């Protein structure tokens, strides 16, 4: 276990290194000049040059990347070009909102997706099954921003059940989480259904039935834990999808998370922030996958961490 963790951590570090290198290279190739963003429109060429030097942006790529890495090792993500504050501080201040949203979204998709999938699998072939699956398809196929705008319009503007935007109480969380969750819920419903149908065909379910167990016990105790495994693995991958979706959903709902931060930074070529957010996201994804892998043996004792 320890060895496994150690190895996974090394792998993760390498992945993060790769991510940082690629992002850094992409940003280096960007035609837009960050210095011009900082210097503003009244700057003299002298000022521009000064700033370029100050930021080390006149250095060759390798040198710049090396500087970035060495600082990164000590946890220093640099300072935002535009905001001038520590990227770490900016991200830390916005991360809770994004994490909250992510947790909300995961809850939504698990709650909706898993129960839909479960019901559909148990009622396989019936009208319930079919309508649930069509619903899940719609969920998978709906563009997030359309869903977001629609939910906003119906539940916040028209019905006033939830606030229109912003951040703070659980009521603020509902609509954005739902928006992010619906897509995943569709996937999970389908995955859960097929996984569950598969599990319900297994010999051990037959054994459980042969023992005369009640239906509930068979479904929830015998089938569910087996069926949920592929879903757990998905949650890790999901985090990557969320990190993308966050940009859209946060902007629709004015949610103060890192998605908005990233989007603003991209608009203004604020490289340290883009780097920071990318790395944090990549870290979250890697961590999510790691967690999924670590949780798996607790659900399925056959799985050994090796």
């Amino acid at each position, binding site marked *: 276990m320890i060895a496994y963790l150690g190895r996974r951590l090394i792998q993760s570090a390498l992945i993060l290194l790769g991510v940082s290198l*690629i*992002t850094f290279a992409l940003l280096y190739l960007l035609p837009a000049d960050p210095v011009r963003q900082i210097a503003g429109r009244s700057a003299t060429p002298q000022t521009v040059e000064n700033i370029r030097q100050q930021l080390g942006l006149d250095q060759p790529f390798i040198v710049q990347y090396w500087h970035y890495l060495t600082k990164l090792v000590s946890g220093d993500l640099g300072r935002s070009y535009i905001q001038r504050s520590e990227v770490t501080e900016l991200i830390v201040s916005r991360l809770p909102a994004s994490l909250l949203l992510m947790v909300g979204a995961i809850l939504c998709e698990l709650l909706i997706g898993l129960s839909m999938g479960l019901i559909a699998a148990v009622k396989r072939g019936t009208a319930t099954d079919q309508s649930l699956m069509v619903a899940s398809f719609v969920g998978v*196929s709906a*563009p997030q921003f359309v869903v977001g*705008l629609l939910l906003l319009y119906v539940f916040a503007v028209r019905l006033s059940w939830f606030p229109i935007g912003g951040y703070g109480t659980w009521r603020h969380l509902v609509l954005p989480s739902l928006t992010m969750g619906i897509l995943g819920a569709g996937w999970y419903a389908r995955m859960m259904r097929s996984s569950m149908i598969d599990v319900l065909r297994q010999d051990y379910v037959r054994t459980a039935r042969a023992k005369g167990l009640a239906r509930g016990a068979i479904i929830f105790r015998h089938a569910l834990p087996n069926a949920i495994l592929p879903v757990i693995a998905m949650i890790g991958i999901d985090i*990557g*999808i969320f990190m993308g979706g966050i940009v859209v959903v946060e902007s629709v709902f004015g949610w103060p998370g890192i998605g908005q931060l990233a989007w603003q930074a*991209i608009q203004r070529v604020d490289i340290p922030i883009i780097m920071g957010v990318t790395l944090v996201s990549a870290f979250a994804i890697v961590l999510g*996958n790691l967690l999924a892998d670590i949780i798996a043996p607790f659900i399925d004792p056959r799985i050994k961490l090796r």
Partner: protein
Amino acid sequence: MPAKPRAGVWRRLVKRRLALLGLVIVAIVVAGAVLAPWLTGYDPNEQMFDGLTIEGSPLPPDAKFWLGTDLLGRDLLTRILYGARTSLIIGIVANGVALFIGTLVGVTAGYFRGWIGSALMRFTDLMMAFPALLLAICLAAVFQPSLWIVAMVIALVNWVQTARVIYTETSSLAEREFIDAERTIGAGAPRILFRHILPHLLPTIIVWGTLGISTTVLLEATLSFLGIGVQPPTASWGNIIFENQTYFQAAPWLVFFPGAAILALALAFNLIGDALRDILDPTQRGRA
């Protein structure tokens, strides 16, 4: 005698109600895209003088503009029809390229173990760790967006999942006994790959292909929504929504119709893909 494999896939597809619905939708969209010039009397980019109110507001659907006009006074129906071209091109090209890269990487990594395989898979892991949309945004910023660039960006982002799936499948195929059997009769890697592994991957590739189209169309829409998609005035369903999204209350038709179009197309491909998955799955063969 049971049906020969793949013979009758089409027939079985058509027999499923949902798949049929999907096929019909795709057919409608394709027809709309191809026949756009004959279906509407307007030019997709023509900003009509009578397409806006005096105050500059778009017109709701009426007899003249069936689906209303957009913020520049263009006929929305026409733009949606022409936008279908973009969305389909992106869906097919981007997805095709993604599928190709994904299959190539997945098969190579899955069949050839050793350093090539693990290097490829580590790279895939790395790409998985990228927040996809963020990567797309960065890429879109580096290359100035055009239809083809957007397609390539989407492909570069989307091949990863395919590679993963194909990898898993290839490595389990490579473990199958009949592959061992091929080796014992002296079959070389090319033969095994092309004659024996690829045909088995075909259902997966087809299914991912169809499912991927919907993902791709959605991603293009999202990129357009963020203003880094296909360039105006070229219409794509995504950028129609993007241009008009703030009007979703004042002029809901501007978001509703293209949104419904995206949903319908994505839904259609999902339905087809799902049905294909069932039909092509050998373990399902012979089942009712």
